[in-house]
C-alpha cells in the first residue's frame, strides 16, 4: 500500500515534468545578437583589423624599436628598452587572426554567392594579415588558421611557406578583381582612387621584398600603385573613427609616445644627424611629422585627429622598386636611380620643398633609398621589416645597454603559448626570423 502510494507520487512528479518542458524550452535564442551576417558586413570588420595592425600598437612598437619614436612614459619606457613580455603581444596577434578568420568567412560567403569581387578583396585582406604576421613573428599558423572546427590547435607553417601563400592569395585576388576600383568595392574604412589590382601588385612587391626575392619584387612594383592612388585608412573627427595615433597620444596615453631624445628620425629631419642625401625639404616634412619632440597631432599634422594613415602607398612602391632594382640588377642599369628620383620628385611636390635628386650609385644609392624609406614611411611596420632584413644598415641605435641588436621579431603571444597545443616553443626577441638568417 505504502509502496504503491510512493510510486504513484513519483509517477505524478514525472508527469509534471514531461509536460513542463514546453514551459522551459525554446527561449534560449539570444534576443540580443544575430547568428549570421552577410559577407559585405563581415569583410568590413576584416578591413578594420587591417587598419589596426598597421596603425595601432604593432605600428607604435615598430616605430619605437626603429627609433622613429621614443617610449617616454609608463610602460612605454620599458618598451623603449625592449623590455616586453609575451602577454604584451596578445592583443595584436588576436586582432590579426580574428581578422583573418573574418576575411575567410567573407570569402566563404563570396563563393556561395558567386561574388568574385568580395572573394578578391577578402583574399587581399588575408594576404596583408598573413604577410604582416609572418614578417613580425616568423613561423605562424596559416594553412590551419582561422578554422576552429577542423583545426582547434593550428599548426605553425614555415615563414617561407606563408610568404608563398601570401603571393598565391594576391595572384588569385588580382585575377578575380581585374581593374575594379577600390572605391565602392567593399572599401569599408579605406579610401583610394586606384584599383584593387594595383594595390595587390604593390603588396606582392612588398612581401617579395621582405622575403628577399628582389627580381620578383621589382617586377611587381612596376605594376603597383600609381601616383595618387595610395590605399589609406579613413579617419574623421567623430568618436570611434579618429586617427589611432591621435587617440593614443591625445586621448588615451598622453606622454607615452614622443620623438624625445630626440629620436633618429627626428634627428635626420632636423639635420642633427646628416642625411646621406642632403634634403633641405625635410624641415618642412619635420613640421608635418613632429611638433617639437612630440608627434604632430595638430590640424594638418601627420597624426591629426582626422589624418588618414597609409596602408600601402605610391611612395612605398617606388622605393621598393628602387631598392629591388638596385639589388636585382647589381651595378648595371639605372632603374633603381630612376625609381628613387621619381619618389623624390613626388616628395618635393608633396611637401613643396627641396628634395634634390640623387646621382649616387651602388651601395650608396641603396642606402639612400633605405634611408628615404625609413623617413617617408613614418609609423609603418615596413620600416621595422627593412631594418631587420638589412641587418640594420642604417645604424638605428640599440636602445638597451644589455642588447646587441635591435629586436628581431615580436614575441609569440601568451594567449597562443597557453592555448595552442601545437605551439612550437618560445623564441627570444633577438633571434632572427628564418628569412633574415
Amino acid at each position, binding site marked *: *500500500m505504502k509502496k504503491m502510494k510512493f510510486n504513484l507520487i513519483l509517477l505524478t512528479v514525472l508527469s509534471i515534468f514531461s509536460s513542463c518542458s514546453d514551459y522551459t524550452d525554446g*527561449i534560449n535564442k539570444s534576443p540580443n545578437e544575430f547568428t549570421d551576417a552577410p559577407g559585405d558586413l563581415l569583410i*568590413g570588420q576584416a578591413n578594420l583589423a587591417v*587598419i589596426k595592425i598597421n596603425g595601432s600598437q604593432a605600428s607604435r612598437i615598430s616605430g619605437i624599436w626603429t627609433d622613429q619614436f621614443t617610449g617616454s612614459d609608463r610602460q612605454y619606457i620599458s618598451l623603449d628598452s625592449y623590455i616586453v613580455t609575451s602577454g604584451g603581444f596578445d592583443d595584436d596577434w588576436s586582432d590579426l587572426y580574428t581578422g583573418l578568420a573574418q576575411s575567410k568567412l567573407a570569402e566563404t560567403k563570396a563563393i556561395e554567392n558567386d561574388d568574385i569581387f568580395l572573394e578578391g578583396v577578402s583574399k587581399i585582406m588575408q594576404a596583408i594579415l598573413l604577410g604582416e604576421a609572418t614578417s613580425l613573428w616568423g613561423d605562424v599558423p596559416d594553412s590551419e588558421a582561422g578554422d576552429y572546427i577542423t583545426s582547434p590547435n593550428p599548426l605553425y607553417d614555415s615563414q617561407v611557406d606563408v610568404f608563398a601563400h601570401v603571393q598565391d592569395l594576391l595572384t588569385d585576388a588580382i585575377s578575380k578583381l581585374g581593374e575594379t576600383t577600390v572605391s565602392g568595392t567593399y572599401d569599408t574604412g579605406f579610401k583610394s582612387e586606384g584599383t584593387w589590382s594595383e594595390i595587390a601588385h604593390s603588396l606582392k612587391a612588398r612581401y617579395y621584398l621582405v622575403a628577399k626575392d628582389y627580381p620578383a619584387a621589382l617586377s611587381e612594383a612596376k605594376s603597383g600603385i600609381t601616383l595618387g592612388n595610395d590605399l589609406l585608412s579613413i579617419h574623421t573627427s567623430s568618436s570611434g*573613427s579618429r586617427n589611432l595615433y591621435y587617440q593614443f597620444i591625445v586621448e588615451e596615453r598622453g606622454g607615452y609616445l614622443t620623438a624625445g631624445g630626440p629620436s633618429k628620425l627626428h634627428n635626420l629631419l632636423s639635420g642633427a644627424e646628416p642625411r646621406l642625401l642632403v634634403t633641405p625639404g625635410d624641415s618642412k616634412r619635420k613640421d608635418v611629422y613632429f611638433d617639437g619632440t612630440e608627434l604632430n597631432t595638430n590640424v594638418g599634422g601627420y597624426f591629426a585627429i582626422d589624418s588618414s594613415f597609409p596602408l600601402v602607398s605610391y611612395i612605398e612602391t617606388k622605393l621598393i622598386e628602387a631598392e629591388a632594382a638596385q639589388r636585382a640588377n647589381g651595378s648595371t642599369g639605372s632603374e633603381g636611380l630612376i625609381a628613387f628620383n621619381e619618389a623624390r620628385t613626388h616628395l618635393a611636390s608633396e611637401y613643396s620643398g627641396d628634395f634634390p635628386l640623387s646621382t649616387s650609385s651602388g651601395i650608396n644609392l641603396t642606402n639612400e633609398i633605405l634611408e628615404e624609406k625609413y623617413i617617408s614611411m613614418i609609423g609603418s611596420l615596413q620600416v621595422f621589416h627593412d631594418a631587420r632584413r638589412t641587418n640594420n644598415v642604417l645604424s638605428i641605435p640599440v636602445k638597451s*645597454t*644589455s642588447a646587441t641588436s635591435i629586436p628581431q621579431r615580436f614575441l609569440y603571444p601568451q594567449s597562443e603559448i597557453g592555448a595552442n597545443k601545437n605551439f612550437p616553443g618560445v623564441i627570444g626577441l633577438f633571434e632572427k626570423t628564418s628569412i633574415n638568417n
Partner: protein
Amino acid sequence: MKTKFTMILTLFMALIVQISFAQQKTVSGTVSDENGLPLIGTTVLVVGTSSGTTTDFDGKYTIRAKTGDVLSYSYVGYTTQNKTVGAASTINLSLQSDNTLDEVVVTALGLEKKKDEDLSSSTTVNKDALERSKESGIIQGLAGKTSGLKITRNSGDPGAGAYIQIRGQNSLNGNSNPLIIIDGVPVSNKSAGGATDGTVGGATDGVTQQSRLNDLSSEDVESVTILKGVAAASVWGAGAANGVIVIKTKRGKRNSKAVVNIKSSVAFDNINVEFKKQNTFGQGYPSWWLDDGKDYSSDGGMWVANTGLSWGDRISDRTGGDDTVTTGNTRFESATGNIIYPITSKNSTEVFNSTNRDQVFGTGITIDNSVNVAFGADKSSTFISYSDWRQDGIIQGKSSYRRQTFRINQVTDLSEKIKSKVSASYSRIGSDRIQQGSNLQGLYLGYLRSAPDFDNRDYVGTYFNSDGFPTLKSHRSYRNYLGSAAPTYNNPGWTINEQDNPNYVDRFTITPQFDWKIKENLTLTTRYGLDYYNDHREYYFPVNSAAGLGTGFYGERDLKEKTENFNTFLNSSHIINENLNLNLILGMSIDSNQYSILGGTSEQFTNPAVGDLRIFGNATAANESIASYKEETRKSGGYFILNMDAYDQLYFEASARYERSSTFEENVFYPSASIGWKFSDLVNNDILSFGKVRVAYGEIGITPEPYSTTTTYGPGGVFSSWGDGLSAAAYGNPFSRSNTLGNPDLKEERIKELEFGADIRLFNNKASLGFTIYDKTTSDAILNVDVAPSSGFLGKRANAAEITNKGLELDGSVNLINNTNFTWKLNANYSHNKNKVTDLNGVESVFLAGFTGTSSRVVEGHPVGTLWGGKFARDSNGGYVLDDNGFPTISEEEGVLGDPNPDWIGGVGTVLSYKGFTLSAQLETSQGNDHWAGTEGVLKYFGIHPETANESTATADLKTFDGRTISNGTTFRGNIQDFGGGDVALDLEWYTANGGGFGNQSESFVKDASWTRLREVSLAYDLPKKLIKNAGFSSIRLTLSGRNLALWSKIDGFDPDINLTGATLGRGLDYFTNPSSQTYAFTLNLTF
C-alpha cells in the same frame, strides 16, 4: 499554466489516503509553557497513527484517540512529552523548555527545524547579532559571525555591495553569489557594475555599485540561516550551487496589542586606512631627462610643471616665498577668486598633502531611523515597518546613499483550515557614486598621484589665454595647473564635485502564500514570489573632465529585473509507530527571470554649459549611441524530501530534485541523502549534554548561462588594450563574428559533496561545539576557455574544468557565566577551505578580472582567482637572472604570483551583560590571503610613495638601472639593494621602469594581505523597567557602537577587505579602489 496547476492539485489530493479508526473518543486540553502562557501551535500526535493536530491561539487542542493511545506533545525548543490516554477526556499539560540553546534552523523551503535534529551544517545568525553590525547591508553584517562564510566589501562607498562566498568557489560560470531566499522565495542578488556599460561586474574602473541585497533593511530581519552544504540546498536545484542564504523577516504576534519599536541612530564614518605620501620632493624630474641627452653632469631633480611625476627638486632647497610668475593675460581665475599666473620659478616650499587630503576626505554621517509596529488579533497578525537610512560618505562631495524601505507582513486565517501569509515590501534608493579605479576621472588616481607641492583646492574656474580670451568652467589639476585644457588626470575636487554618478532604485517584492491544512497531518503550501526592480544609473562628466572625456560625456542605463517563483508543496507527517516518525514533502516549483538593460551615451557636448541638465541629444548624431540587452531564463522542477526519525536518536533524510532549465533543455536529477545519530542518549554522562554525528551527501548543478550555445554576430570594431580603437558604428556597422565560440554541447556543471560533522554540547549545555569537514568536487565546470587565437576564436564556453573544495568548519560557544545579573558568552568560529582547480583541460590559464599586466585568473593546479602577471626571470636555483648592471631581468612568460584566497578565516565574539549593560565585541581574521598592491606600485613610479623619498649614500660605486654609475660616497634619492650581483642603486630609473607599477613585473607588488580586525564593538544600556514603565515604555535602550575600529595587517595604505573588481570571481586586486571606512554610532531604541 493555471489549468495545469489545478490538475496537479487534483492529483495531489487524489493521493491522500484516508485511514479510519474505531472506538475513538475526543480528548481535549490546553498546552502551556512553564510560565503558564499558552503554547500556540504545539503538535499533538497520536503515536503510531497518522492522526494529529496543533494547538490553537489559546493553546487548546482537540483530538480523537482511543484509550491506551499515547499522545505526543512537541514544540520547538521544548522537551517533547508523551501522555497515555486514560479515562479522562481532558489532558492539560505544561511543556518544559528543553534548556538547550533552543536553536532553530530554517530549511531551504523556509520551514523551521530544530537544529538538534538537523542533519546539515546550516548555521543561523539572529537579529541581535545583525543589528549590532551598523552595516547598511545585511550581508556585510554577517561577516565573521559564522564559519564557512566569507564576505568581502567592494569598497567603502556608501551602499557598496559585497562579495559572498560559501565554502569556496564552486563555479566559474557567471555570478558566484549564493541563492538568497526571503520568506520562502528566491530574490535577485545581481550585482551589475561597470562605469558606462551594463555588464555584470568585473570592471576595473567606474563606480562601485550596490548589491541588490542591500535593498533590504536589516531592521526587518528576524534571522539569517546559511545553508552551506549541498545536501541542504539541493531542493532548489541549479542556482543553489553556491549555497543558500535563507532570510526570515519579522512577523507580528497573535493576540497581542500593538508593540511599537522606534530606532534612531546617528553614525560617524572615517577613512580607516590611508596611503602615505612623501612630501620631500616636488613635482618634476631630473634635468638630464630634458633633452634626453643623458647628460648626467647635473643629476638633481628640477621642478617641472604639469608632469605626472614627483621626481623633482627637494622642496626645502627652494628659496621660499611666493613663486615667481608672469603676470599677464594668461591666467586661471578660480571660482574662489584666486588668480594663478604662469610660474617661471618655483620658489614656494609649501607642501599640501594634508590640505589635499582634507579636500577629499572628511567625516561621513549616517542617520538611520526606523519604526515598526507589530500586532495581532485572534485570527491574524501584522508587522509593518518603515526605515530611512541616510548616509553621506567619507568622500566629500557627491557620495551618498539613501534607502527608504516599507514592509508589511500579514498572516490571516481565512478559515479553520486555510491560512494566508502575505509579505510585501518596497524599497526606494537614491545614491551618488564616486568614480574609482583605473580611470583618469577617478578619485584616487588623481588624488594620490598629485604632487606634494601642488595645492589641489582651486580646481575649477576660468582660464584666460594670452589674448585674455576666457574659457569658463576650466579644470585645473596638477597635470595642467593653469587649466588651459582638460588635464591628463582629474583634480580630485572635480571628481567629487563636478562629476555626477547618481543612481535610483525602485524595488517591490510581494509574496503571497496559502497554507491549506487538508488533514491534520497534511498541509498544502502554495507560494508565489515576485521581485521587481528598476535600477536607473547616470554618468555625467562635464566638459573639461580629464583627457578622453574632455568634451563631455553623459551616459544613462536602466536595468530592470523581474524574478518570479511559484512553489507548491505537500507536507505530510506520519507516525508509523512509537519509535518511527516520517515526514514527507513533495513539491514543484517554476522560476522565471527577465532582465534587461537599456541605455545610451552622448559625448562631445554641443552645448558645453549644460548645468544640471542630463539629457541625450546634446551632441551630434555620430556622438550619440544606444544599447540594449535582454535576457530571459526559466526553470521548472519537482522535488521530494523524506525525513525519518527512529527511536528519537536516528535521523535520516533523503531528497531529490528533478528539473529542466531553459538554458539547458534536458532534464537533470539531483539526489541527496543524510543520516545522523544522536548518540548522547546512549551515553550516560554528566559532561555530555548532547551529541550528534551526521553524514550528508548531495549533488547539485549549475546550468549554462543563457545564449551560450550559439556563436553570435554583431557590430564589430577593433580596440587595442591601450584604449585606441575604431568603432563599428563609425564605419557603417560592419559585423563581426563573436570571438567566443558558441558551444551547443554544453551541459550542466555538477557539484558533489560529502560532508561529515558533529554537534556536541557539554556541561549542561553551557558549551557547544559544531564541526564539519567537507569534500566537494565540481566536475564539468563551465568556463570561457581560451582557445588558440590563431584558430579565429579567442575563447569558447566549455565544460572544461574540475574544481575541488575541501575544508573544515568549527563553531563553538560557551556560556562562561550565567547569573541573573551577569552573563558572559563567548563564541568563535574557524573555517579553512582549500580550493583547487584540478583540471583545466590543458589550458594554462583563463583571465577573470584585472589588467593586461596583472590579473586574477583560473590556473590549473591553483585556486580560483590566482593572481597572475609579469615576473622576474629566475635561474635554476630560483635566483634572479641579472642584467649587466646587476638588476633583475623580466621573464618572457607570465606566471602565478599569489593566491588571494585565505588559508583560513575566523571570528571571535563575546557578549557580556551586567544588569542593564551589554557589552559585545567581534573580532574577525583572514590569514594567508595575497593581494596585488597595484596602487602602491604606481605610487612608486610617480615618486609619491615614501620609499621613493629615501636618500641613500653609495658605499661603493653603484650602478643604476640605466647603466649610470653613482660614485662612492654620493648621496642620491633612492635605495640600495642587492639582487644577487652586489649592491645597486634603486633610483628613479628603476622605479619608473621595472621597480614601479608600470614595469613589466608585478610580483613585487603581490603581498601577504592577512588581516585581523575589531569588526564591531558595542555597549548598550537598557534603562531599568520600573523607571520607564510609568512613561509607557516597555524598553528603552541606548547603544554606543563602533565598526571596523582596529585593523592589523601588513598591507600599507588600504584595507585588504576590499576588491577593485567588486563581487566578481576576480579577487585580491587593488588599483586606486575607493577606500574603506570605520564607524562610530549612537543608537536609541524605544519600545512601547
